[in-house]
């Protein structure tokens, strides 16, 4: 490490991690030009519990994108990127400043069905991607639990799927990308070229520049179906054991936990393992690979349209209702668990969150937050047991708890590590908000003491000191230096960045 870098690191003051220095409350009028007020919109995080007013621009061409950066410079406003707005918290919000919505930059630029390499604009969604490549016998190597995020958003957050322990995050499958800095410079980045930018922009939550194209390697598949097995799990220890036994060999592993289970049943739930079919196993791949055979059904039991299901779920989205539903889910899985497997389409297995459209609305006006922490395998048992117990003790058992296995990766700002994660959904109301945040803060302590990490796509509750602690001074200092190089005027900001890295 060079002396100047050492100096720079020691120059970052300890009392705050502020590399976001925009004038807010104490700022001066930057210019005499106002932003067009007809662009002002209410911008919400996906969990609805966070929102702010932003001037939203939706460019469809590179030229229009340059224009927005120029407007930001002229009016002294900052720019925050937004893809599909699927981050739960404030990661794609930019209060009173420009929100650059990239969903119209959604062209597939190049596809090679022989190599499985695809080049897309950043607004292309996971849905667009899989529907495009599936008929040729390919599937995205990594997908999140919903098909609606954009590839640009996925790369900025370095998202993972139920195969993180074997396939790594999406960044592991990005071959190269082009990044437009807010100063208007275009960088081609890969593991060979501009490799520092490559590793930092993936997972860099939109602080370094805008992805204008992303090239991905996808996964060869020989069937539209997966071999799935559901295993009933009596408690948290059994959950860990089940994962450990199945890690070698499984393509996908995910655990659902009934957060209402207590005592001996603490951490009880269901594990789903899924595996790709080998070549030749599926007698009819041309048919199973058709998009029509991947679609999620529109109705429940062939009757009730799923589009209105959330209205009924509202009555169950409370402590009594979820306890009851979870119990039914747990016992039915116990009764049905006879050790057999069944086949399920890729989309049906991967995109569980898309089964009930608008399900988040069942959480009511206050919305929800997801609290997800990543803890090393050595301390995870202890930390997650303590978290589940703490939630019950505080009277807020999570309404949806999901357990996964991860591995460390090469991206410094990434959330993943060699260990486990537990994602906990909490309903937010005006009345319980402060209590939920206090509970999260207590859980943060457990995670940090256990050497754990956090995920910006999910976060709503972290404080600057938490972020600094889990990222580490060195990582943060390197990132700040790179940001200063690519964005010397500090144009790129989001509400999340201001919350975690804002200057006081």
């Amino acid at each position, binding site marked *: 490490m060079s002396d100047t870098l050492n100096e720079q690191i020691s120059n970052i003051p300890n009392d705050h991690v502020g590399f976001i220095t925009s*004038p*807010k*409350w*104490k*700022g001066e*009028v930057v210019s*005499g*030009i*106002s*932003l067009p*007020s007809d662009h*002002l*919109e*209410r911008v919400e995080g996906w969990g609805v519990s966070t929102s*702010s*007013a932003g001037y939203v621009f939706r460019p469809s061409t590179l030229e229009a994108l340059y224009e927005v950066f120029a407007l930001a410079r002229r009016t002294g*406003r900052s720019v925050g990127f937004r893809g599909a707005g699927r981050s739960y918290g404030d990661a794609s919000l930019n*209060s*009173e*400043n420009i929100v650059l919505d990239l969903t119209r930059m959604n062209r597939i630029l190049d596809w090679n069905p022989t190599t499985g390499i695809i080049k897309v604009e950043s607004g292309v969604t996971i849905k667009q991607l899989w529907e495009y490549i599936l008929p040729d016998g390919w599937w995205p190597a990594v997908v999140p639990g919903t098909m609606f995020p954009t590839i640009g958003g996925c790369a900025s957050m370095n998202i993972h799927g139920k195969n993180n322990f074997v396939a790594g995050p999406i960044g592991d499958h990005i071959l190269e990308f082009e990044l437009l800095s807010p100063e208007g410079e275009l960088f081609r980045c890969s593991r060979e070229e501009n490799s520092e930018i490559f590793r930092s922009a993936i997972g860099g939550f939109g602080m370094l520049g805008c992805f204008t194209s992303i090239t991905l390697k996808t996964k060869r598949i020989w069937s539209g179906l997966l071999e799935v097995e559901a295993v009933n799990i009596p408690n948290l220890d059994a959950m860990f054991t089940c994962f450990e036994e199945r890690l070698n060999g499984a393509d996908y592993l995910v655990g659902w936990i009934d957060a209402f289970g207590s005592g001996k049943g603490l951490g009880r739930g269901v594990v789903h393992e899924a595996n790709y079919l080998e070549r030749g196993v599926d007698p009819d791949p041309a048919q199973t690979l058709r998009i029509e055979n991947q679609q999620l059904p529109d109705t429940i039991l062939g009757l009730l349209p799923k589009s209105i299901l959330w209205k009924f779920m509202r009555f169950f989205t409370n402590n009594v209702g979820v306890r009851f539903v979870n119990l039914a889910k747990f016992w039915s899985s116990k009764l049905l668990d006879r050790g057999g497997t069944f086949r399920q389409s890729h989309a049906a297995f991967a995109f569980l969150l898309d089964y009930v459209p608008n399900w988040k609305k069942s959480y009511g006006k206050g919305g929800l937050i997801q609290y997800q922490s990543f803890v090393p395998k050595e301390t995870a048992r202890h930390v997650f047991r303590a978290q589940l117990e703490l939630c019950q003790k505080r009277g807020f058992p999570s309404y949806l708890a999901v357990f996964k296995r991860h591995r460390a990766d090469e991206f410094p700002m990434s959330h993943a590590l060699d260990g486990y994660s537990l994602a906990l959904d909490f309903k937010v109301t*005006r*009345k319980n908000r402060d209590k939920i945040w206090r509970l999260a803060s207590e859980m943060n302590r457990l995670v940090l003491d256990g050497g754990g990490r956090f995920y910006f796509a999910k976060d709503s509750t972290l404080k600057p000191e938490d972020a600094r602690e889990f990222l580490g001074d060195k990582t943060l200092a390197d990132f700040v230096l790179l940001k200063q190089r690519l964005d010397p005027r500090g144009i790129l900001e989001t509400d999340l960045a201001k919350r975690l890295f804002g200057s006081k």
Partner: protein
Amino acid sequence: MPEPIRKAIVVGASSGIGAAIAKRLAADGAYVAVVARRDDELQRLCDEINQQAGEERAMPFVHDVRNRDELPLLFQDIARRLDGLDTIFYAAGVMPEVEPNEYSTDKDALMIEVNTIGAMAWLNEGAKRFERMGEGRLVGISSIAGDRGRRGNPAYCTSKAAMNTFLESLRNRLEVKGVSVTTIKPGFVDTVMTKGKPGLLWLISPEDAAKKIVSASLKNKNTAYVPGQWRLVGTIIRSIPSFLFKRINI
């Protein structure tokens, strides 16, 4: 449990009811942009508020409500510096002395410009924004004087009556969009406007008035008389038939 006021604008905040509202809001933990013509008074108010709070909760913006051209940029800038906005109080008002036999169009026009058109300009900016956001509060400080055309100051009564109707229309437009609009009708408040006037009924301090105004706003009331007993007076006054009203000296 009402949604608290966190980030507010108070127009006409350099003295009287406006200043008291700003102090009240800041004491309750809100961040307040205070808007008025007089720089010195604004600065003094902010210093007082910020010293008390131990942090910068009030920020001054010098502006004459008759300069409508500068409003869009100013409004945007205030929202940016507050990092959000949920409530606007329009408390700017003038009431020049008018003799019983005086008919001054200049004075009348000034009252309409400041009391009515100024309110329209600020509340319109607020309405545009809050309608999009699906939430927010607009509060207009009107007067019991708007309930009836009294002989004392025709244009003042007119300016407040117009404000009442304007606020009512806004309310009917915006309530379905999640925005609340509250009309405040104070009686006599001990401010510069009432200074030297003898024998005022139920005179209250600006601080007391501000407390009641903020409380009515939090409850999303349609119309609130301040203090509450004026509602009865207002109702009676409004129902007096004209042939009698002409003869009563109020």
